[in-house]
């Protein structure tokens, strides 16, 4: 059986990227609402009865974080922190294209990997929202932030935020794709349908 040439494979990748982009444009308003509602549930559960309570909402394509709790009650000006939510879930397009163009995957496994991969990516997108919500309390609440969070907490949250926003959003699709299709991908890259096992040295 002949292997697909690299050029053809990349053209397929480009085609799936365009299809993914069109689907994403069509589905993104509902998908944004899903991320916001799941994140709100998780945030409410995590924050419990503590001083920090966050309302997460959508205003067009912007995700709003509004601190509502004891600390917000003490403040005269309640502020909303805004981020473009499309920036958080735009990476689904890349994962979609990578899985559909992936060489050597059977129909059943491709479907399973697509579902599992997109679910895992969805959880990472929710994690990004949670980190952004935490970021407000750690950095942007003035005296409250200084009194309740040490330098160590600030470093961890800032690093997590940078990791998820700067490189995580594009590297996670690749990492998830490799995690689920390692055998087939390395097999293709090595020039065989199935990756050949490494020979053990005879002693």
């Amino acid at each position: 059986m002949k292997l697909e040439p690299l050029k053809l494979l990349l053209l397929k990748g480009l085609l799936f990227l365009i299809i993914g982009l069109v689907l994403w444009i069509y589905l993104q308003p509902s998908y944004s609402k899903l991320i916001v509602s799941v994140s709100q549930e998780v945030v409410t559960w995590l924050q419990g009865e503590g001083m920090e309570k966050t309302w997460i909402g959508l205003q067009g394509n912007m995700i709003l974080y509004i601190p509502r709790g004891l600390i917000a009650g003490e403040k005269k000006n309640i502020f909303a922190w805004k981020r473009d939510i499309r920036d958080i879930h735009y990476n689904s397009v890349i994962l979609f294209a990578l899985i559909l163009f992936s060489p050597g995957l059977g129909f059943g496994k491709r479907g399973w990997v697509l579902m599992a991969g997109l679910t895992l990516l969805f959880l990472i997108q929710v994690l990004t929202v949670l980190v952004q919500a935490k970021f407000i309390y750690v950095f942007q609440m003035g005296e409250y932030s200084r009194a309740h969070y040490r330098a160590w907490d600030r470093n961890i949250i800032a690093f997590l935020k940078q990791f998820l926003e700067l490189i995580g959003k594009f590297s996670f699709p690749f990492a998830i794709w490799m995690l689920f299709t390692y055998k087939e991908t390395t097999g293709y890259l090595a020039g065989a349908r199935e990756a050949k096992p490494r020979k053990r040295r005879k002693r």
Partner: protein
Amino acid sequence: MGEASSIRSQEIKTPSYRKEAFYFFIKFLVLMGLLLFLELFNPVNQKVIIPFSGFLARGSVFLLKLIGTETKASSTLIVSQQFSADIKAGCTGIEPIIILIAAMFAFRASWKAKFCGAFLGMVILQGINLVRIVSLVYLGVNHPRYFSEAHTYIWQIVIIALSLFLWIVWAKGLKSYETGAS
């Protein structure tokens, strides 16, 4: 007893792709974390990243002049009468390089292949990033209504698709893979 030990030895000989995939995943994430930490580390940021951003700004201004768009560089800023852009984290082209290097170094290949691939990848990605900055400033000055879409969607996907493409081409060219060299 003999049958059981034969089955066990067969299990040992069969490569565990799940394990290998998991190691790749972890190595990739750890390497990315370390490289990002290095990028954000204040002395590195002050002495390497910010001067490099300034260099990108000056290079972009030079290229923009060649295509007839007058701008000025001030530190990491590119300024014109109608539009200004700041080259900050996320715009320097360093993040796709981090992803590419982490993917190359997490994959089973010779050190020579890893270093050569990383160097070539860096050069290509920085070249394309310069084109990205020039085209975005050009759009910002001449067609500002297209700037946001081009900045957020078109170029982000082009840059990341390019780094994945470079990784695939690099990994496909590895002759050492089948022999298991590491």
